């Protein structure tokens, strides 16, 4: 019995070693009220940056503000799209769109009030950024934000569009 278990474990690890992670399927709404399924997020074969934030998370807001300043340049250069996912809970959820509009962010914003998408990706702390390549595979993950860290993001995106 132990040998069978071990054999199964080795098979599983063998399988896992050659498959890259894709986005899990969770149904969310965006800030305009449209229903979106996270496993069908696409950007026409170009990379996507998924950034988890909350209205009360100061580093998250600093990061999104910093990216906002260079977002147009990033889009022109690489065609990347940034999707911001808010984990604000039910009563704060109504503050997300006002805040996004106040800062003039042009990102797609999704609402994840019960942290379903966050949990499905195994994320615990925000700010958390994931970069998904053109084929839908997760290529980069990062937790936390320090000033200037967004440069690392655009470097990774440039790398991905070269391949």
């Amino acid at each position, binding site marked *: 019995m132990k040998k069978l278990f071990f054999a199964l474990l*080795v098979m599983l690890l063998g*399988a896992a070693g050659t498959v890259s992670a894709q986005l899990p399927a969770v149904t969310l709404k965006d800030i305009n009220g449209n229903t979106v399924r996270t496993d069908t997020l696409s950007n026409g074969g170009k990379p996507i940056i998924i950034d988890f934030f909350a209205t009360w998370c100061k580093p998250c807001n600093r990061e999104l503000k910093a990216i906002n300043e260079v977002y147009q340049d990033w889009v022109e250069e690489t065609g990347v799209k940034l999707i911001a996912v808010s984990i604000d809970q039910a009563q704060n959820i109504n503050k997300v*769109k006002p805040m*996004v509009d*106040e800062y*003039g962010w042009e990102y797609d914003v999704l609402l994840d009030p019960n942290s379903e998408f966050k949990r499905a990706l195994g994320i615990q702390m925000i700010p958390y950024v994931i970069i998904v390549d053109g084929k839908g595979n997760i290529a980069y993950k990062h937790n936390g934000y320090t000033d200037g860290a967004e440069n690392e993001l655009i470097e990774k995106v440039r790398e991905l569009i070269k391949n």
Partner: protein
Amino acid sequence: MNRRQLCLLAALAIATAPALAQEDGTDKVTVSGSIQSDVLVPQEDEKIGSPKYDEWALTNTYADINLRSKNVDAGLRFEFLKHPLPGFEKDFKGWGVPNFYVKGKFEKFEITAGSFYDQFGSGFIFRTYEERSLGIDNSLLGVRMVFKPYKGIQLKALTGEQRRYWSHNPSWISGGDLELNIDEWSKRLSQSGTHIMVGGSYVNKYEEDENDRIFADATHMLRFPQNVHAWDARLQVQKGGVNVLAEYAQKTQDPSFDNGYIYRKGNVAMLSASYSRSGMSVLMQQSGLTTCRSAAAAQ
């Protein structure tokens, strides 16, 4: 295991890998997981009166593994909280596998058996979630089903026992939620960019009261209701920069130690309206709960 068996096993592993990693994704199985460990090494300091611990290190460690494929997901989480970080409740101590699930995903239907999390509307009457930094995990262990018979219609039904640290509450929770996104049926509405959502939900908690013997005075014992019912209704309208949400929820008598054995029915109403466009926003939100407490009604 001898060398020949080991070689065969290695060959099997290598042979399996390409078979499962097909590009079209129909047979792909993705394995993902994480380990999170927060460790604290306490230092004794008599000058500030720091508490003494028997352990040389305290840790909250969580390890989870998830398998995902086209139609089936499964996973489990192992928690090691035997020597937890300070600041958590006494019952928080323990270790084991408190969360495990299997999920079947089909075109219009999804079913989960095991531990699950969900929220109805704004979460007034039902919300199960995990917040490790607060030591909260009130997941339900049971069955959850989601039906999407037609676009814009979503029906959820769930039932189970709620987790309380390393055991489950001696009550049974069942509930359902229906949410209609009317703009997905009406071309006129979706063309004008208007989104209308109507939803309603109902939750029931069944708990036998044979174990509780609480006395209001020398001759009167509190009678606890076996069934607690709660329902919620909501309406949301969004168009352009305007967003209005109105939600109301009500609950029948639910006396417990936490609320001082109150017998008043509870209700909450929330109205939220916002207008925003690039550069400016206005938000007004009002919610009210009944706050006056009445003396426990003895029977």
